[in-house]
């Protein structure tokens, strides 16, 4: 599966790398995250804030993006101990159309518990559509992803996982700065539905793009 993805990306980006300028972008966001684990024994729900840093480097139609999220989540009931949440992605993508970007790569997530760390690793395929809808100032985007392979150190077998993000980016005229607001959600199903993991939250951040 991974080999097919690499071949697909290689085919799409062939010929795009020559004589192109690098276009780096970066953003820093505050994420109000909520993690909800539903198992037959009960439901654990944690909420908290996290810092999300994202960066991308584009050349022609090819783009390499990374993200890192770290925060602390507290149990909604107040009885369980808080969890540290760490998450990262490394995605290689290609802008297939002016408004459509296809990406793929690993997405790792870890909940640091008091006694152990629960680790998740998804190999994802993502599709991101973005276009301006209020003049050129406001740009809306919709992103959907689905894990093609996943590894998790939980007893249940991985079934499927998918997620998405919808939001808008406001660009300041003639300035590289932008503001972003969005909503994101990941949903993983394991053990034929015996374990459901949902992570969602609001993303509010500022970005900087060098042109």
């Amino acid at each position, binding site marked *: 599966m991974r080999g097919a993805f690499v071949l697909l990306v290689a085919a799409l980006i062939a010929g795009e790398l020559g004589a192109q300028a690098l276009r780096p972008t970066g953003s820093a966001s505050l994420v109000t995250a909520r993690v909800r684990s539903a198992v037959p024994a009960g439901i654990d729900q944690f909420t908290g804030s996290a810092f999300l840093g994202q960066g991308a480097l584009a050349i022609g139609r090819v783009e390499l993006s990374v993200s890192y999220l770290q925060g602390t989540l507290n149990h909604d009931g107040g009885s369980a101990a808080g969890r540290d949440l760490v998450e990262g992605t490394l995605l290689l993508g290609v802008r297939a159309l002016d408004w459509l970007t296809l990406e793929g790569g690993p997405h790792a997530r870890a909940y640091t518990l008091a006694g152990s760390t629960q680790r998740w690793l998804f190999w994802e395929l993502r599709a991101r559509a973005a276009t301006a809808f209020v003049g050129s100032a*406001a740009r809306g985007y919709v992103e959907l992803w689905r894990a093609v392979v996943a590894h998790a150190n939980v007893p249940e077998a991985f079934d499927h996982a998918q997620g998405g993000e919808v939001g808008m980016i406001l660009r300041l005229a003639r300035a590289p700065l932008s503001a972003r607001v969005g909503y994101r959600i990941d949903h993983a199903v394991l053990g034929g539905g015996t374990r459901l993991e949902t992570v969602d939250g609001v993303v509010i951040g500022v970005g900087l793009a060098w042109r």
Partner: protein
Amino acid sequence: MRYRGAWVCALAGALGSAPSRASAQTSDSVFADGVRAYKHLEFDLAAGLLRRQLAPLEAAGAPAAKRVLGLVYLGAAELFRGRRDSAAAVFRRLVMLDPRYRPDRLVFPPEVTGLFEGVRQQTKTVTVDVPHDTTIAPGPGAFGIWVIVSSFQTVDVTLRYEDGAPFRALYSGPIGDSLKVQWDGLDAAGAPPPVNRVLLRVASRTPTGELASIVQIPLDVRLFRPDTLPWPPAPAASAFLPERAKAGPAGRALLGGVLLSGAVAALPAIVGGTDASSGPRIAVAGTIGFAGLLGYVLHRPGRPLVANARANQTLRDAWQRRVETTTAENARRRREVRVMVRAGEAIAIQPRGP
């Protein structure tokens, strides 16, 4: 007879004292035999030869410069043959042919030059010298006409239509020797000539006011006006930006806001996470929906687009400036009329007697 013999001696002395000048005036080989006979004091022979040599030239209408030499020697020969009237007639022909001609006083004795001068004073004739082919810019002194007269007289210099009607009076008054009359290339009203041909007429009058002679030269007149510049094309309609907002951007903002808000609201259902929290999600959906609504208001249809209107006005102003520049340039070019004047052959008209 005594008179003739005395002047024969004087003539022989004069010829001997100034051979170079004599030879200079006999350089034209056409009259070489006649002049030689004159110098050998064989005046009968000289007169005969010169008349024979002049006859074909006059028949052929040869230029005055080719005939004057033969005529002055013929006149002198006739004088020394004792035929003063014939000499005067020959000198009259010579004056009519070239009013500027004067016999060389070092070659011809005072008898000859004196008779010639007397004839010249009595003969009222005029010649006109104009550029054969020239192009002028209408204005003072544009076209010069030299009027040369044989002796003091009154002349009328006029331009006339082909039917003889007056076109422009140029000069009327006395001339002692020569006068440069100027035509500005325009008609009496100050406009370029409306016709392609006018007649330059110089009428010479006797002291009593009677017409003595008329010289007329046809002038072909052609006007040349520089081409005017075409009007600069008006800016194409596609070059103008819309000055009123169209419905597209407003609709796009509204629709985009609705779709994105709906996508935010429906995202958990799309990915299967129906147990997602709704509060923050609705807040994001509302923010995006509000942005879309705000975008609709800001881009509402029919809203004046000031920046576009200003850009369009700049475009119109630039075109207007080009029009004004072209108008000024065309006005300048219209004023820059050139008149090509081509002179024909002069015709001498003898006025009818009473």
